[in-house]
Each structure stands twice: as structure tokens, then as C-alpha cells.
């Protein structure tokens, strides 16, 4: 080791904050693509949004131990020639710095048959809870090109968490018990 520089003693460089990239976003599926991926044999997806009243919300919070923030949950009935195959539930979870849209496919008996993440976005923080910031993603289509972190191909470093997704799935299962069963 004596003939080589000790890499640990002096930084090779100090990167100023200014050249750091701000945020990251990736889109994997539109709603329609996720529906086809999770229910490839379906011939129709019938929108059946669930309007959540106070009683639903109480039940879901008790059952899943996760509180519910929305009044309306987007849900589709997946059908093959009129016969119920299962339910496609669109859901969103967010943490301090992240926002994830995902879909859970439930079979006709309420069992989870699949899950796909539709998109994953990171921010510095405050924007996530800002409705206007969220609104920019509504009605988005694949290829619309979110400009956030466009040149970022890969991040080495954990995603912010998948804990929220796990909690979200629990909440979706409670929603099934409360309103779809």
C-alpha cells in the first residue's frame, strides 16, 4: 500500500451542489397498458369508481391500519365476454419525497393476482403534497415526456421506499372488503 496513494485520505474532487440533478421520474405504463398487462384475457374494462363515504373510510382505516385520503377510488371491472374476471384498482401512494402510481389486479374473489407500478416520481419534498403539482400528471399519456430528470438513465441508491406500496395494497384489499365484495 505504501507505493500507492491512499484514496481515503483526500477527496478526489468536491462536487458543488449546483451540478447535482434535481429529481427523478419514470413512467412504465399508462392505465390502459397496465389493464392489458394485468388482465390479458379481458375483453372489456368497465369503470366502476368507488365513492367512499365516512363509513367506508372508517372500515378501511380499521382493517388496513392505513388512513384514506381520497373520496373516490378509480376501479375497473375486468370482464371477458360479460363474465367478471376481477378488479383493476388504481392507487397512488406518496412519501416525503416520492409519488408512486400503481395498479393492483384482484381476482373475482378479492385475491391479489398482480401489481404493476405505472409511474414513479421523486421530488425535493413540498411539491408532492401540492395539488397543482399532482395535477400536472393527470391525464398524462405514455410518451408525453415528463421533463423531470430526463437525462437520468440510472440511479444507484435505494428508491425512497416500497413500504408505502405495501401499505397501499393493504388499503386496496380493505377497499375490496368494504365496497367491491
Amino acid at each position: 500500500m505504501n507505493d500507492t496513494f491512499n484514496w481515503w485520505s483526500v477527496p478526489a474532487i468536491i462536487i458543488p451542489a449546483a451540478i447535482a440533478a434535481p429529481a427523478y421520474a419514470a413512467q412504465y405504463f399508462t392505465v390502459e397498458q397496465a389493464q392489458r398487462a394485468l388482465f390479458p384475457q379481458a375483453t372489456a374494462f368497465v369503470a366502476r369508481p368507488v365513492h367512499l363515504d365516512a363509513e367506508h373510510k372508517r372500515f378501511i382505516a380499521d382493517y388496513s391500519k392505513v388512513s384514506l385520503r381520497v373520496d373516490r377510488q378509480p376501479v375497473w371491472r375486468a370482464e371477458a365476454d360479460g363474465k367478471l374476471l376481477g378488479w383493476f384498482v388504481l392507487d397512488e401512494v406518496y412519501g416525503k419525497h416520492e409519488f408512486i402510481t400503481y395498479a393492483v389486479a384482484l381476482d373475482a374473489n378479492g385475491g391479489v393476482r398482480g401489481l404493476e407500478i405505472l409511474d414513479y416520481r421523486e421530488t425535493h419534498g413540498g411539491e408532492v403534497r401540492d395539488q397543482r403539482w399532482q395535477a400536472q400528471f393527470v391525464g398524462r399519456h405514455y410518451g408525453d415526456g415528463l421533463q423531470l430528470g430526463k437525462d437520468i438513465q440510472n440511479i444507484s441508491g435505494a428508491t425512497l421506499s416500497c413500504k408505502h406500496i405495501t401499505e397501499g395494497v393493504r388499503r386496496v384489499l380493505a377497499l375490496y372488503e368494504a365496497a367491491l365484495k
Partner: protein
Amino acid sequence: MIGLRRARPLLGTVVEIGADDVVAGSDPGSDAGSDRDPGTEAAIERAFDAVARIHALMSFHDPASEISRLNREAAHSPVEVSEETWQVLHAAQRLSAASHGVFDITVAPLLVELGFLPRPAGSTVSDWPSERRGDWRDIKLLHGRRVWFTRPLCVDVGGIAKGFAVDQAVAVLRDSGVRSGRVNAGGDLRVFGAPQETLHARHPAQPTVLIPLPPVSAAVATSAGYYRHRDQDGREVCPLVHPHTEQLCDTRRSVTVYAEDCTSADALTKVVSADPERAAPLLVAHGARAIVLEADPASGGCRVYDSAGGARPDGQPGRRTAYA
């Protein structure tokens, strides 16, 4: 350019798998968003299946996993394990020997004590004082893929299995005819088929700020404490423990290791986190390179330490690395 990308929650993180069209039956004109090549979809699906299988075999939390079974039974009599678990244990033991025990999958009881891992049902190992605990040398790999613990141990392969899962997923994509692709399991990343890709790591003090790193042409892994820290006596700590000193590693740093495969990259991040100076020869032996990021409070940016920065013959710091 990667044609198709999918992401699922697995291995305690979000796993992203991307692939271009498979060799056979591909349509070069097809757009990722429109009708996709079913062969590529199927290849990605199989790659996720491989990751899910490793998750199920090697979870520390799941009592039904092979690792949990080893922790319950392998001190009583040898336990036969799957090919995958066998390979991970072999890789772990090789690295433990090469690092003189700085990498050690038997540090799990310490992590249990510190509250980073749940106490496994039926295990009393973590109640023991540290001088009675065994270490990696008490793991015996016997013929017939049988594993024997010569004294009660509690192993956690979390420090290497994620990288192994990435390597397995890449092998599945290649076997399926995918020419180029990438697998990113929340920090453990492998790309293939493309010359190189850009890479960013998180700022150790502000995880949503991304720091550009040298590009990656094979595998890379990052270990950091930013999302798993908790207070111990008022300090921020993360679940990286030096097995000899039982000291927790500094949470304000992140360690990124570039290597040929992700299993090595993942495990080497733990060695560098525990002992950056002594990791140097091991990095060289693996053809690996480490980059450590440390918050620089003065500028709000990052100090970058680069193990390849020491290769200059004049012995001066490697200021002309990829950042120059």
C-alpha cells in the same frame, strides 16, 4: 436505448427491469408505448420471477425462507439448500475470507439488537453476549449443498443477495434473447449490451438530489444509510456494522462500488463502508472501483473519494478522474 421498462416492489425496494426487443421476432420500428413485443414482455416477466424467487428463498423476515430455516436448524444438523442459496453462501464465504471477516453474514444478531432486523421466531442467538457468538468461520458448506453451523448462528444475506438477484435477473434476460438491458434493484444495478450508461447516486445528506458519477458498463451497487437511519443515543446510524468493532458505519456517507458482477459490487460496498482503507487491495483483486460520497457542508455539495483516483504514478490525488 432500452425499449421497455417495468417496476415492481420486491426485495424491500422498487426493482426496475428494462430490456430492448428480443432477437427473434422483434420489430425495430415499434415504439415502447404502443404494441410491444410479447417476447420482451415475457423475458422481463421471467426476470421478475427470478428476483421474486430469490426474495422468497433468502428473506430474513419470512419464517418460510431458506435463510430462516438455516437460522433455526443448521446448528442442529446440516440443512440442504437450493442452488441459489448455495451460490450466495459460497460467494459470501469467499468474500469473508478475502476480507478477513470484515464482510460477515453472521452480524445479523447485532442488527436485531439495534432494531434493524426483526427478532427471528425461536432464535435466542441475539440474546447472547458477543464473545460467545460465532462468526463466518462457523458456517460449513458441505457436499450435496448442505449447510452446517458449528455453533448457533443467525445469518442475514441482505448484504449480498440483492446483488445476486440482479445477476440472476440479467442471466434470465440474456437467456431469453434480450440483447441489451438493465436491472436496478434500488441501488444494485447491472447493465449489459450497451457500451455504457450514465449513472447518478444520491446525495448522502439530501437523498433526492442526484450526483453524477462515472458511467457504468457492467455492475454497480450503492450502500448508504439515508432511508434506514434511526437514532441511537441521539446519533444517526445506519444498518452497516463493522463485525470486528461492532461499530455502526457513518450514515452521512454513501459507498458505490463498480464491479464486473452485481453480487461482488453489493458485497464490496459493505467492506468499503466498514473499512475503506483496508478495502483497497480487495477492490483491486476484484477489478472493482469504489466511490465514496460524503456531504460537504461548506458547499452543500459532495466530497468524492475515488479508489481509482489513487492509481496515478506520481502519488498525487486523482483529480483528473471522470469529473475533470
